[in-house]
């Protein structure tokens, strides 16, 4: 009972296979890994099935796939321009992975991969590291001019550069924490309100009447969480594009 309404329990990892170890680190196949695999299978299956028919006038499934493709494609094209074409598969992968992982988390008893900070932080660090690598590969050391805005008086230039560096270094933090925080908080709040319903419902007739309000709240929050699940995937993808734009076009 207590476990059933514990809002934190849903984030618990369980070993499904293992324990396995590599170089002293445990890498057991957990429920988190299982849902990552489900997300990969869902994304790949949907897109492949959508593209399989390849009809001139798309059916429902093909429309979904095309909408999905065009949505990310337009995002990359609008932010990065034609040079961003090489990054389209990456942005598509990030968007789809985060979106489907978020959406899977909306099912009861399913695990939310993106509610763990290590996942979102790894993705965020990967994105920002990629920006640095691509930036240096494209522009050499001249890429570091990104931190030295032109037209700033020499007196305050060091401070501005320091602020620019700090703001750049805070990108992975904000990028990762935003997704993590949204998913974690949303699921906790959802669970808390659902827990109210269970608690009040077990208190007899008065409790059942009283549980109507938290039930309505839980329903409304579920709708909101679906919006958040999509929105956070979109935000993560578009910020990836915006950051990659710094690597491609240095003029600030």
């Amino acid at each position, binding site marked *: 009972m207590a476990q059933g309404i514990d809002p934190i329990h849903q984030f618990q990892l369980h070993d499904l296979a293992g324990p396995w170890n590599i170089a002293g680190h445990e*890498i057991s196949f957990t429920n988190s890994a299982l849902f990552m695999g489900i997300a990969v299978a869902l994304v790949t299956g949907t897109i492949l099935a959508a593209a399989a028919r390849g009809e001139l006038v798309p059916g429902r499934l093909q429309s979904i796939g095309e909408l999905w493709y065009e949505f990310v494609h337009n995002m990359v094209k609008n932010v990065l321009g034609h040079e961003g074409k090489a990054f389209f598969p990456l942005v598509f992968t990030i968007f789809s992975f985060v979106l489907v992982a978020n959406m899977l988390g909306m099912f009861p008893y399913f695990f939310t991969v993106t509610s*763990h900070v290590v996942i979102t932080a790894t993705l965020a660090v990967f994105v920002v590291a990629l920006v640095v690598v691509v930036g240096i590969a494209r522009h050499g050391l001249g890429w570091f001019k990104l931190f030295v805005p032109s037209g700033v008086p020499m007196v305050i230039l060091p401070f501005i550069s320091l602020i620019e560096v700090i703001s750049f270094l805070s990108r992975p933090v904000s990028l990762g924490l935003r997704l993590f925080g949204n998913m974690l908080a949303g699921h906790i709040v959802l669970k808390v309100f659902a827990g109210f319903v269970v608690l009040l419902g077990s208190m007899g007739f008065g409790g059942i009447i009283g549980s109507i309000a938290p039930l309505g709240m839980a329903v409304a929050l579920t709708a909101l969480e679906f919006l958040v699940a999509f929105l956070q995937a979109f935000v993560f993808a578009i910020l990836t594009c915006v950051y990659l734009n710094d690597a491609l076009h240095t003029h600030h």
Partner: protein
Amino acid sequence: MSQSTLAVAEATTTEAPAPAAAEEGAAPATTEGTGAEGGHGGFPPMDAHTFPSQIFWLVIFFGLLYLLMSKLALPRMEAVLTKRHKAIESDLSKASALKHETEAAIRHYEKSLADARANAQGIATETRAKIAAEIEAERSALEKTLSAKLAEADARISATKAKAMQDVNEVAAETAAEIVSALTGAPVSKDQAARAIAGLKG
């Protein structure tokens, strides 16, 4: 090594939910290797013990998804969209070609229509002129014969009239001579009476 990091993580992360930390104190030793499963006191997302596993599987599955997308799914999707784009474009160009053809046909038709109309107008004018000329010729011929007949009739009338006048004069002279001889008893010749009448008349 993994045990020491686990212990550090638990120590730092269980500070907030303090009450549970007490029973957790002994937990790492017993749940070693499956700390994620056994620990209820810690806050799971901050449980550093699970980090290697999550990162490992994230790298595997994210990399797999990237490969599947970039090598397999997205090129197919792109092919479908390119095919549609091309089909639409070719249909559009075909449609515009047909439209041009139609326009040319319409122009041609309108031109021949205008030609035919001009032609018809020419023929009509010509015919009208011809008919008018014929009518005119016929009319003038008719008028000529009519006026000839009229003149002839006039001549006949005047001749008849003159003859009639002659006859009247003769009758009058005869009558007058007889009347005079009857009244006076003196014989009066016809010539005398005629002269007298002519003198009256004059």
